[in-house]
């Protein structure tokens, strides 16, 4: 588990609309090449914010990414 990998990805999803659009269109393709564990990758592909938070994703990011936020 990498706190940095998970959170830097969350940050990009929040702050980079183009990257967010690519992720929304094809999450697996958008994540290709990123240094994630299989658990992290699966959680992002499933848009499972609870799991992403459990894996170290900061709460305020998982609650505020446009279109993906958990409430």
């Amino acid at each position, binding site marked *: 588990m990498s706190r940095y990998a998970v*959170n830097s990805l969350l*940050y990009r999803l*929040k*702050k980079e609309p183009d990257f967010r659009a690519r992720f929304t269109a094809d999450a697996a393709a958008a994540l290709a090449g990123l240094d994630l564990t299989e658990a992290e990758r699966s959680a992002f592909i499933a848009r499972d914010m*609870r799991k992403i938070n459990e894996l170290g994703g900061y709460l*305020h990011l998982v*609650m*505020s990414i*446009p279109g993906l936020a958990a*409430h």
Partner: protein
Amino acid sequence: MGKIVFAGAMSHVLDPEYYDRACGAVGRQTVEAVMAEIARMGERLSARKPDALIVVADDHLNAFSFNAVPALCVRIGRDVQRMTQDHAEAFDKVLEHMPDRYPLHEDLANAILEQGLEAGFDLALSWEAPVDHAFLSPVNTMHGARPIPPLVPIWVNCFVAPQPTARRCFAFGQHIARVVARSPWNVGIIATGGLSHFPELSLPRVGETDTVFDRKLIHWMESGKHEPLLELTTGELHKAGEHEFLNWMVLIGAVTPARADVRYFGELRRINMAAVEWSLP
């Protein structure tokens, strides 16, 4: 000789729509009640004609990326812009109707920074970081249509472990008080955030608060017993959802041993709302 002429601390997501969505009608009523008290605090602040307003708050991973996460950071420069977010969600939405830019009190910010480094506080500085709801929601609620005094935004890292200690935040507040006392300015200071919410920053625990812990903090603030506050660990603050109390610790250090008056305390499923003002000599 300068003086701290106003000190107050308050919750900082001041958005009836947000709490209506999160908690229903009671959420709206509670935040409107705390906002009314915060507006009255703002009237008292304005009446004292401050030359500057120091705002101690935290970043919600908006101003700083993972490029650098400063423990304590002073915003310098001539003005500061509000954080922008496309398709804002949740607590980011409250910013949408607020002014874009706010003047800074450059000389006071530089004095806190420069004298801080000389005094042993290894402060970070920023010319560019934007401010999010933690700063602007209270500032705009306090002022309404009245002019906002030049700001000195100061960030405390409340969320990204390891955070600065409560004791260090308090000591930094004492430094701020010394800088103000040596200056020619009348200064207001507010700290924002809290009280208890989002324990352990855990999504399944959103909705839990710790009223017992809040009451303990309030007791120590009301009685002016600040020594126990210095013993608070970031671990226990994390467990109780009191992360943002580190901001309050800076303010308490700046006004110690002044006693606090609670203007509002309201329990809500998502967060316990508070507005507190200190009686200053």
